[in-house]
Structure formats: structure tokens, C-alpha cells
């Protein structure tokens, strides 16, 4: 079967004009300019509403006395598909298991939220936050203190009023 070629006849030069199309476009722009339902957002002065299930920068929950809730069980580094969590466990003064080192490389993270899902003590969460620009790459490795300082709301992996998605 041969290739069929459809020849399109272009109008000759001089018999066409941009004017009509340009006016159509400017009319649209003008309509938007006077439209009261504006869609442009004045970020960053105006902040976007993030979905409660937005998965962004991590948050480490803390106990009332300031200790991290993490018990260094090692499930999040195990489940992490991007291998971005580094954890070294140890024993604290009370004989409890706690994380000596807990680091998340936010650059390497793919924000899948599995660390939050797997955590048995609801310590590590992904958060409703996305603005983590930095001047250097190493600042993207968040250590335990920095994760505990994050004060944005953590992600809801499910709707609390409908936990089984019914």
C-alpha cells in the first residue's frame, strides 16, 4: 500500500492577513481583563490552598517533652523506594530505642508517602508544604532536629470522616 499524500493548497501570499486572528486574540485578552472571576494568583503574597492529601516536606512528630516520637524501628528506610532515609538507631538514657541519626534527603525523596503509611508510631509524616528552596544542595538533607521543627500540617493519607473511602 503506497503512502497517500494530500496536497494542501495554501493561499497565495498577499491574499491573507494576520489581522483577524490578532484581533480575535486581543478580544479574548480584553474579556479576561474585565472578567470579575479572575484566575491569576498573586503568589507568593497569596498562598495556594493545598489539598489535605498533598504530600510535601516531611514532619517528625514529637512527644510533649520534645523527644521525637520515632522509635528507630527501621521500617521507613526499608520501605522507602527512593532510599532517601538514613537511620541509625540506639539506646537512650532510659533504655528506650531512639534515632541517633535520622536524615531525609528531600531531593532524592519522591514523596510517595509510604514512610508515613508504614510508621508504627505515627512519627514521620509527609506534610502539606512545598516551598523548600535552598541555596545549597546539602541543605536538602533534613536532619532530625530540622524535621521536628517543621510546623506545617502533616498530610492526611485518608479522609478522617471517611477512613475507608466508602
Amino acid at each position, binding site marked *: 500500500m503506497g503512502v497517500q499524500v494530500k496536497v494542501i493548497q495554501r493561499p497565495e501570499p498577499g491574499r491573507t492577513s494576520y489581522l483577524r486572528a490578532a484581533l480575535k486574540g486581543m478580544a479574548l485578552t480584553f474579556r479576561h481583563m474585565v472578567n470579575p472571576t479572575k484566575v491569576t494568583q498573586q503568589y507568593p503574597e497569596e498562598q495556594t490552598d493545598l489539598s489535605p492529601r498533598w504530600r510535601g516536606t516531611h514532619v517528625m512528630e514529637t512527644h510533649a517533652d520534645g523527644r521525637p516520637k520515632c*522509635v*528507630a*524501628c*527501621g*521500617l521507613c528506610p*526499608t520501605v522507602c523506594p527512593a532510599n532517601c532515609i538514613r537511620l541509625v*538507631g*540506639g*539506646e537512650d538514657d532510659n*533504655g*528506650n*530505642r531512639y534515632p541517633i541519626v535520622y536524615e531525609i534527603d528531600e531531593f532524592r525523596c519522591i514523596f510517595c508517602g509510604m514512610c508515613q503509611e508504614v510508621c*508504627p*508510631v505515627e512519627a514521620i509524616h509527609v506534610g502539606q508544604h512545598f516551598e523548600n528552596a535552598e541555596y545549597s544542595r546539602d541543605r536538602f538533607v533534613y536532619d532530625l532536629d530540622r524535621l521536628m521543627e517543621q510546623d506545617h500540617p502533616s498530610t492526611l493519607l485518608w479522609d478522617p470522616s471517611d477512613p475507608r473511602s466508602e
Partner: protein
Amino acid sequence: MSQSTPQANGNDAAVETVTLTIDGREVTVPKGTTVLKAAESVGTEVPHYCFHEGLSSPAMCRLCLVEVEGAPKLQPSCVTQAQDGQVVRTQGDQALRQRRGVLEFYLVNHPLDCPICDQSGECHLQDYVHEEGRDHGRSREPKRVFGRDDFGGDVLFYGDRCVMCTRCVRFMNEVEQDPRLTVVERGNRSVIDTFFEEGLDGTHWSGNVVDICPVGALVSKDFLYKQRAWDLDHTPSICPSCSQGCNISLHTRDNLVQRLKPRKNLDVNGHWMCDHGRHRYEFMNRPDRLTEPLTGRGTARTPSSASRGWRAALTDVVDRARSLAEGGRGGRVMAVMSPNASNEDIGALVEVVDALGGGDVVYRMARADDEIVLKGYPSLARRRDLAANGHGAELLGATRVGDDDATGGLEAVADHDGIVIVLGDELDDQGEDFGRAAALYLYLGAHPSEAATHADAVLPTTTFAEQEGTFTNIQGRVQRFRQGLRAPGSARPAWLILGAVAAELSGRETAPTSAEEAFDALAGRTNALAGLTWDGLGSRGALVNETVPLAGD
């Protein structure tokens, strides 16, 4: 009833066998085998806690119950002997229902603290409940709480997690034969405890109770919260701490040895290993390492001197050694080696010494005052020789010098004016004048040493954990160990370095490129190892065909 089928030929003792059916499959096992072991031989693991191969079977955990046709109720497979014509169902409805019930009872009091439990990932309760247990607990009663108790030694006891299999009690009674653990209280409140305040302090084998504990009740203090069990890589190896040659696993992560565990070899160590060897692994993780080959007298003094690579270093060494040997200025070669060098390393060293016109190979080895025998397994002991391959060194022609602290004895070597080769011995007791008079001084080692100051060549070698090879233990059993760690920088196994030097010196075209080739070549030219092959060593090792007594025996 059992039917005897004596074997007609050979010197083998006649073994009576019985044939039974397990889960629809015919199994023939020696008479006296338990149903549990028979099932294991066809790949069916019947859950069990109290049963352990190295201990007696009290049949008290009630977890290995199986259906036996004709028996009125379920039978504990760990004590039921296999009989001819028996029909066993390990996965029958009744057996599964009963085992599910037993597991639910275990979880009435067992805390669900898997996230902070060191056993998590190698826990038998986890595994069995995952396989056969209920998916949800139904118990609403509060769990009884004991807290944790320091048992002394390296052992920490979490009473809440205990499933009362009493393996630890039986190990101390039957194998170590130093009964220090017992069950106190009864029923729901029963708990393992020590008799007196001293607990397990001063015992030499109590680390094994941590290994045989099926749950996280007994855990190692050394390993506490250090790593998760599922993150560890297991490498079959041989314990380097004495000449018993216990089969062990190196559990490694992040290129560091995290702990040692015994590996079953009924010919050598059974299921056990001593605490002395178990806790001596930090030396494999030493960060101070030689990483690049350096040549030229005094190179060790300026560690920053640029390495020109292995080819240049070995060419330099061979040229100098050859010119010395040809000019007759080499004299007898004096070689000092570590008794933790593998057979292949020693063989290559001997080959180099022979190629340079012969000489003496000596080694220094620490010796303990006493053997520490495991009473319930008398063929296993922490031997007096505190190195893995003293026996292999003797078999390959090395001589022991120095005292029982592995010091001294090197007066003749230190001031030797011919060729001096050091392999692995760190020469801690020698000053920086060692080898000053030598015409050629080669230092092969993993770690820097002050005594290498005057070395003409400092050649970095791997440690035993970073290479493959064989050790010969006190029985004369040659056993393989495998590589568990990556070597740093350009460090190479000594057999590779010295094998290349020997090949060059003796004009051979090829040098061994694997430990297998090195061993097979060594076995081909050494009487003591004649007949042994790398493949023939298998997982249990093979005996050498002559017995050479160790110096001092």
C-alpha cells in the same frame, strides 16, 4: 512396625530405615528420626519453639502438633518417632486449627513491640503467626508486664516477650552444663530467671542462648538496637579467634561487620560458638588501613607519597629481589607471617621464599593458658592457640617463634641483612629500626605499622573478611571462608600479590587469579594437602592427610 533394610555393601554401619508418608509424599528416613526432622527433609517446616536440634525435646510448646493417622489426637512431631507406614498430615485442617489456637494463646501476653524488638525480622513468633496465625487478636485482657532484666554477660532479658520454650534453660543445663537459668513461678506468671546476682557473668558460652531464643526475649547487649535483622548480609565464614575453626556467619552492613553468629557444622562446632570469638569482630572494621602500594625505602614514613600502582610496585619488587638473588647478596630469606593468613596466602609466601633461594618462614601466635571446653559438646572448645591458621602454617612449613603473647622471637629477622618479608604480622613489639639492615624489606599488611618504616615496599593486603580462602583448624580440617566486606582502595589478597611475584621470579607465565586456583595449585604441590580440591571442601570442610603437631604441644 519398622522394617530393617541393612545396607548390603561397604563398611557403613547398617542403617535401619523407615518409610512414611508426610503430606502425601513418601519419605524414607533412618529409624529413630522424629516426624519433625522427617518433614524437614522434604522441605516442610513444622512450627516449633521448644525443639532445638542441639538440645533435648520436652514437647512443651505444643506448636509442632501434626495429625498422625490412627492416633486419637494430634501428636507433637518433635518427639514422635517416624514409623513405617505412618501417614502424617502437617497441614491438615485439625492441625492448622490447633496451631492457630496455640499461637493465639502465645499472643495473649506477648507484647506487639516488634518495631523496637531486636529479634524482629528473624523472630519465629512473627513468622509463624504470619504463616498460620489469626490476622487479628481477640484478647481484650491487659497483658502481664515483667520489664527487662540484665542477665549478666552479654545477655539482656525481656520477660514480656518470652514464650517459655526453655531452650535457654536447657542450653545452660545440658550443653554448657552450668545451670544458671531456671523457670520461676508457675502458669501465667512463669518467667526465666537467674539463680543469684551474678547471672550469666563469667560464663563462656552463654551468648548462644541469644541465638537459640526463638523470640526477642534474650537479646545481645552488644547488638542492642544496632541494626535491623533484615538489613544484614550473611556471609559464611570461619571464626578467626582460635584454632577450633568454628563455622560462623559474618553479619555485615555498610561494609562493617555488625555481629558474628555460629553456623551449623556438626563436625566442628555443632550449633554453637564461644563468647570470646563472638565478640571479637571489631578488628575487622578497623579504619586505619593501608590502601595503596608504595615502593622505595622509607615510603611508610611519608604516607602521602604518590603510589605508582600495582604494576610498577611489583615490577620494582621483582627486579630488586632478582638482582639480589642473582648477585648472591640475598642470603637466606627471612619471612614473618601472621597465623591468621589463609592457606593460599601462606602457600604463596612459601613459594616466593623458595623462588628466592629458600629461607625461614616464622609466625608468632598468642596462646591462652587453658582450653575452655563446652562440656555438652566436648569436641568444641576455645582452643589454646588464639589464631585461625596456626595448624595450616605448620603444615606448610612455617615455624612458631616468640612467646605466648605473640611477641618477641624476631631478633634474627630484625637485623637480617638479606631479604625480609613480613606478611600480616603487625610487629607491634618491634620498633622502627626493624629491617633497617635488610637488603630488601617487603611489608605486606592491612594496617600501618611503625615497624614498616624501613620497608622498601609497603603492599596493602585485604583482611580475612575481605577475601576468600581456607583455614586449617586444629583437627586438620581445611575449611573455606568467603568474602564479606569490600576491601579499601587498592588492597589485594596476599595470595594474589605473592602469587604474581612468585610466578614472575620463577618464570611461569600464569599466576593464580582466584582463591580457587591458588588453593588447587597449592594442594597440587604440597604433600599435606594432597588430594584436596577447592570444590571438594564443600560446606563442612575436608581433613588433611597428615597430622603435624603444633609447636609446644
